[in-house]
């Protein structure tokens, strides 16, 4: 479940003195997240006497994460660690596109069209897709979901595009 796939190391973009690039970059990103959270919660009220203000806890956790991020970064600097593995573009791109297309289509176009479209788009995520099979399975899945969610579970989902309902 948790083993990371090991591809070859990325061509060196990191200077040599960073001994564990994976941790180093991870730590830097955590620092960035912490700073962003600290900035985002800076307008909130802090302690009032003994009682916490709205901003106390976020700031506390923000500083804690900042410290941990620095620690992870230092670990990445001084101990030998993993290199950064290559990022694939195909899977993430098409899966994200499929999710986005669903989010944009569901309101105007209804469940049937958006489910099928996003099925086809996400199928582009692997070069192994065989289109005949994919289309058949896509139709079956759309039919299954169109039964399951609105009828079997009674969720109020609109099935058809708005312009067709009228």
């Amino acid at each position, binding site marked *: 479940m948790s083993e990371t796939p090991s591809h070859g190391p990325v061509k060196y973009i990191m200077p040599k003195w960073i001994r564990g690039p994976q941790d180093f970059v991870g730590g830097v990103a955590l620092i960035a997240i912490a700073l962003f959270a600290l900035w985002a919660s800076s307008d909130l009220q802090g302690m009032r006497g003994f009682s916490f*203000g709205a901003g106390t806890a976020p700031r506390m956790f923000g500083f804690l994460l900042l410290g941990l991020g620095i620690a992870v970064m230092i670990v990445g600097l001084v101990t030998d660690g993993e290199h950064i593995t290559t990022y694939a573009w195909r899977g993430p791109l098409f899966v994200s596109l499929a*999710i986005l297309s669903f*989010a944009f289509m569901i309101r105007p176009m209804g469940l049937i069209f958006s489910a099928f479209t996003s099925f086809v788009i996400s199928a582009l995520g692997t070069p192994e897709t065989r289109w005949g099979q994919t289309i058949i399975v*896509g139709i079956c899945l759309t039919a299954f979901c169109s039964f399951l969610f609105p009828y079997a579970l009674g969720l109020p*989902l609109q099935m058809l595009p708005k312009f067709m309902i009228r």
Partner: protein
Amino acid sequence: MGDVFSNLGLGFGVVFQLVQWTPAFLGGVSIPIPVNILLCLIGALVGTLVGVLPGIGTIATVAMLLPITFGLPPVGALIMLAGIYYGAQYGGSTTSILVNIPGEAGSVVTALDGFQMAKQGRAGPALAIAAMGSFFAGCVATVLIAVLGAPLTKLALAFGPAEYFSLMVLGLIFAVVLAKGSVLKAIAMIVFGLLLSMVGSDIETGASRMAFNIPELADGLGFATLAMGLFGFAEIIRNLDAGGETDRQLVQQKVTGLMPTRKDLKDCTPAILRGTALGSILGILPGGGAVIASFAAYTMEKKISKNPERFGRGAIEGVAAPESANNAAAQTSFIPLLTLGIPPNAVMALMVGAMTIHGIVPGPQVMQKQPELVWGMIASMWVGNLMLLIINLPLVGIWVRLLRVPYRLMFPSIVVFCAIGIYSVNNAPTDVMLAGAFGLLGYWLIKHDFEPAPLLLGMVLGPLMEENLRRALLISRGDWTVFATRPVSAVLMAIAAFLLVLAVLPSLRKKRDEVFVESEN
């Protein structure tokens, strides 16, 4: 003792409850349906399916099915979700033994000896022993939950905010220490989760925090959204770049002779007992759960065996012990959730999410206010285990055939299913996009070897921790030493600190990693 029986009686009453169903097309004739048993069966079957299919984890499935359970009554929803969890432990063992593909992280070690047994033509006994061991462990765990439930709840009810906060800290530290990978990075993930849980409006002042005036963020990040993104979408993206179809060369021999021989039974009885005991203990501890239990049980069997060289070559103890252990742990990990309201692992965190969505605030008060919910769930576990024992073996053929479904067809289905599920929670397209963003975040985390499970724990415990911290400090008039001066809190904090030190010590860390490397060689 009388209490235990009356409580379990109440639970079984809930499980066998009949609901009158009057469909319109029958013209007013009503049919009694045992809804909860059906939900338990569906949960167990879906769980087995998930356990069988590699590439979909338990956490992802429970997250995916959360929206589906919204329409159900709370008891039914929780019974079904619990069924998925222990069902997956059964299913994982089936594929481990037959085709050497552990569908579930908890059954990785089962494959070591189980597959060897299958190669020697002893798949039948291996499957039977795995099922029997799991069933035995399930029975023991059910009784254990019933016995420990009431006293632990009483203890927890006596806790003030300071003690409760310390308990949560201890739980999180345990979760980190017992998990795989770097302790530092896991703590960082917890804090990240805590920070994410702060988004939305503040419970006490109502001020909007880190929401940037985006209306969809005003209520906070949806729990189902985060879980589905981090576990569902991220896992898919990760699997896609792992490249090509995993080779699924199946051993297509008929499973004959299910019954283990008398010698098999004699060999594995002590192993099942030891596995159950170890699994039960590790399950109760926060951070435990099925995975570490099965690894630890296998390592222990190998250590105490008179001839350890048999392990890895088809030793039946190597199947019996981890299978009993992972099932025992899967169930006893409900104890901290049901009695203290603290989820010990990511799946239990999702159960908290499910409870909150149904308007149940997890904690010791649940057992008093809604006994039928807690005891119904506990009784359903025993019933579910029995059903799994009966249906699992005849269905082996179907499960193996399902392995042939290629991933290229499976993953778009999961994407669409998840997307519809998230949308249906609030009818909000923004939630779907957010889940997508969390999917990419999860992919990045995996790439940098950060575990997403502690993040989820932090996210769930965040609001509870903040509330108790606030109250504790308000009561003590801003005095931070309250956590060290109140005795119970001080003990809990001391244990947490001690564990943390132990985990960072190099010698102990090596021991801990040793338990996990078993699968890799």
